[in-house]
């Protein structure tokens, strides 16, 4: 019975792949009311996001299927998949919204299955997401009032005010989902408190739906947003604001990430930052930048799935999730180490992994648009990201084991390792063949958005008008150099020996022991607070605003609720009073007013 359930669950997790493969060109319509229909069709943009889904879900489902089956979670996961597929396939806003909502509440119900959720976290998650959904609904209703139709189609004939209203409402809706500042607070809370594997879905897949929405904006406002408000330098003026939102998000979230003590919170902030780049690139709107955005979306999905699944494995094996409490797992969990290594190289956007290709395209796009200050902000964020990337690998894997669990941990079960290996392989392959990704994955999407495709002379080569690079050559040179250097080192004479103890450290002549605070993971990044800008950013949070808002709302609620605690006499009196006052007014006015 359990086995059948699990197999069923795994089969469900393959549905996005099935949809992607079997859908073809057909459309599916489902009548609602008043002549409205839900239209489902598969365009290249949807296909791209469906591809992410098809990649991600089986990989998450595999470790989820481990142990005794959690029927409710399986059911909710299936619903979540249904919602996301509906969202992506929808040809009109109605279907998009329905899918969006199904995704929202099923993910919430999955989220609260974790024992770590607090009331605050759960409420923040659902309220932010519902706010996003209702903004979407408002946007689509405005859209409807302008066009009389819910079909997703370019909005060209409406008034400027109407177009701006749609742009702002939809933009806000999707930015909340993406976690742009200052609407990000649900992400660290949610990703942190969600069940460990579900965090992978949240970060890897669900957040992408916000990006899908943002990529719909150029569809709605053709000419890459420039149709909305003209151009600024070489880019669309409307996108400039969006781009700055993305850049500020990226910078602030990166600094926040550096100061986190909890692995999953760090990953959550880094996710915000990474998606900030994408928002910026979408704002730029040129084919280079949007190509970079799409590429980054792909890379971010793979990387975050990889990292979250790996850390889920670590949490499973050790029960620890703070940098302080882990350490030196490199010997005990080498596979996890490699996974995180590949993951952070991708996250930091370093060559030769594909994160660099994505960043390259985005940077070139920014230079092309002549938006150099944005480029500076992105550069700041992506360099600062090195620090948290280093923390991610140092804290759990290097240094000294800081808890009994970390000293005795073993490699995660195979169901965690298989997705890791698959994702690592995909990342490395994409890194070697960036041209392949451009040609096969990115270009069709660009063409749907009405942008010129980037194109690639060969699979290994990434080419832009500004120059490019060859992933194969890069990998060959680096690998060759590495092999030669290592070989030469081995060939040279002289003996090498391994330290007899992890405490064999040059420590000013002292002999450190297990009690000596040798693991630097906890304090890392603390000194950054002394840098004025970072100190200022870290000292401020939106938590206070949110708490204040909640407090005020509750106070208003208490005030209004107080009205309802009276006696029948009061109620009667009130009714009579209303009657008297109103009829006096009536009499004075001599009729209806």
């Amino acid at each position: 019975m359990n086995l059948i359930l699990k197999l069923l669950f795994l089969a469900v997790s393959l549905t996005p792949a099935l949809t992607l493969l079997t859908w073809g060109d057909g459309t599916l319509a489902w009548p609602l009311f008043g002549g409205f229909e839900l239209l489902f069709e598969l365009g290249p943009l949807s296909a791209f996001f469906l591809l992410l889904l098809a990649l991600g879900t089986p990989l998450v489902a595999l470790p989820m299927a481990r142990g005794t089956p959690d029927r409710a979670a399986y059911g909710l996961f299936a619903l979540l998949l249904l919602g996301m597929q509906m969202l992506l396939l929808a040809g009109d806003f109605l279907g998009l919204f329905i899918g969006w909502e199904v995704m929202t509440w099923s993910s919430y119900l999955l989220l609260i299955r974790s024992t770590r959720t607090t009331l605050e976290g759960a409420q923040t998650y659902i309220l932010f997401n519902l706010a996003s959904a209702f903004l979407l609904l408002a946007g689509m209703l405005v859209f409807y009032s302008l066009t009389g139709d819910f079909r997703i189609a370019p909005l060209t004939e409406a008034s400027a005010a109407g177009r701006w209203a749609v742009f702002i409402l939809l933009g806000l809706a999707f930015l909340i989902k993406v976690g742009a500042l200052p609407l990000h607070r649900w992400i660290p809370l949610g990703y942190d408190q969600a069940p460990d594997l579900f965090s992978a879905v949240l970060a890897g897949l669900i957040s992408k739906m916000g990006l899908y929405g943002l990529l719909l904006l150029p569809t709605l406002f053709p000419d890459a947003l420039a149709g909305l408000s003209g151009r600024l330098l070489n880019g669309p003026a409307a996108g400039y604001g969006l781009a700055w939102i993305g850049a500020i998000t990226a910078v602030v979230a990166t600094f926040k990430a550096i100061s986190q003590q909890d692995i999953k919170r760090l990953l959550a902030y880094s996710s915000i930052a990474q998606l900030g780049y994408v928002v910026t690139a979408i704002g730029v709107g040129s084919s280079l930048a949007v190509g970079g955005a799409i590429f980054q979306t792909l890379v971010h999905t793979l990387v975050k799935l990889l990292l979250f699944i790996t850390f889920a494995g670590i949490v499973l094996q050790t029960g620890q999730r703070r940098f302080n409490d882990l350490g030196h797992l490199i010997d005990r969990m080498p596979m996890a180490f490699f996974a995180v290594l590949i993951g952070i190289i991708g996250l930091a956007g370093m060559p030769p992994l594909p994160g660099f290709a994505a960043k390259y395209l985005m940077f070139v796009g920014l230079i092309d648009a002549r938006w150099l200050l944005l480029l500076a902000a992105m550069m700041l964020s992506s360099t600062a990201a090195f620090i948290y990337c280093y923390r991610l690998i140092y804290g759990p894997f290097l240094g000294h084991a800081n808890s009994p669990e970390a000293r005795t941990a073993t490699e995660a079960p195979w169901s965690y390792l298989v997705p890791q290996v698959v994702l690592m392989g995909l990342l490395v392959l994409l890194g070697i063949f960036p041209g392949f990704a451009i040609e096969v994955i990115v270009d069709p999407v660009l063409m749907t958005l009405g942008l010129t495709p980037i194109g690639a002379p060969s699979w290994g080569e990434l080419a832009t008008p500004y120059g490019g690079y060859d992933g194969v050559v890069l990998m060959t040179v680096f690998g060759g150099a590495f092999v030669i250097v290592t070989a030469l080192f081995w060939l040279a004479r002289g003996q090498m020996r391994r330290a007899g103890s992890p405490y064999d450290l040059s420590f000013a002549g002292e002999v450190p022991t297990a009690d000596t605070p040798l693991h630097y993971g906890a304090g890392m990044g603390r000194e950054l607070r002394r840098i004025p800008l970072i100190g200022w950013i870290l000292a401020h949070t939106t938590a206070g605003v949110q708490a204040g808002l909640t407090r005020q709302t509750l106070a208003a609620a208490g005030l209004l609720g107080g009205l309802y605690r009276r006696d029948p006499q009061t109620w009667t009196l009130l009714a009579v009073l209303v009657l008297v006052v109103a009829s006096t007014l009536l009499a004075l006015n001599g009729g209806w007013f």
Partner: protein
Amino acid sequence: MHVLLDSLAMIALCYVMGFLFQGFYRQFNARLQRRWGPSIWQNLYDNMKFLLKSETLIHGPMFFFGPMIIAAGAITTLLFVPFLKDSDWLQGVSTHGNLILIIYLLVVGPLGNALAVGSSGNPFGVMGVTRGLTRLMGLEVPFFLGLALVMLQHETTSVHAIMAAQDGIAHWNLITNPIAFAVILLPFIASQNASPFDVVGAPVEVYAGPRVEFGGRLLGVLMTQNMMMTIAKLVLVVDLFLGGASNVLELIAKAFALFLLTTAISAAFPRLKTEQTVDFFWKVPLGLAVLGVVLNVWLI
């Protein structure tokens, strides 16, 4: 075959120039301090001594691979930098790369090495790495923005194209885009790990920083790549701002001139704290860079 020979030549040239330049730096410093100073070959001796140490201690496999990664990174970087223009030689694989790639490659090796530092388990090393990364965060923004100004000016990221566009001294980017050069100069010094931005490996504050646990031949490897990397960066700046070089002598002359400039600056200033470094970079060079952006993009 050509590529292989060419690469070997580049590596060799880099190494030789590296120890000579650094030997010169030491002697230059010594003369400023009214000392005799070591011989100009001193860096070769030091390097060889370490490479010939008979014992090397490692702290696990990652500790061993770190220096290998950083060396491989250095070699890769320098192979992507064209040394000469209008020549078949000393090009490496630079036609397959671009400026942004090189900037990122500069970081790959150090980050690989940072893994080794971390796996040594010495907190001082990690402290040094963090400082290095923090400094990187400070210097990279103005550095990249300065280079972006150049890329914008020539509308390409290809170093070859930028180099080719600077025919004649009047077209050197140093002349045509002096702000960009002013912007990158100090970050460039910091990226060379030279004073006053050399807090990363400070022996007093952080007990030699990232290199605290490295000894023996591993330290030798680290020194080797450091010397080569210095030259690669110098050549890159020569390519970008001084119009590149047509032959090796010109290359050496230009690189040396640039080196002299940076050396003079670093010899004159004492060391800054990490946060001072970052703050400085975000105020002065970055302010200058923003000015440059406004001038380049908005006004011209």
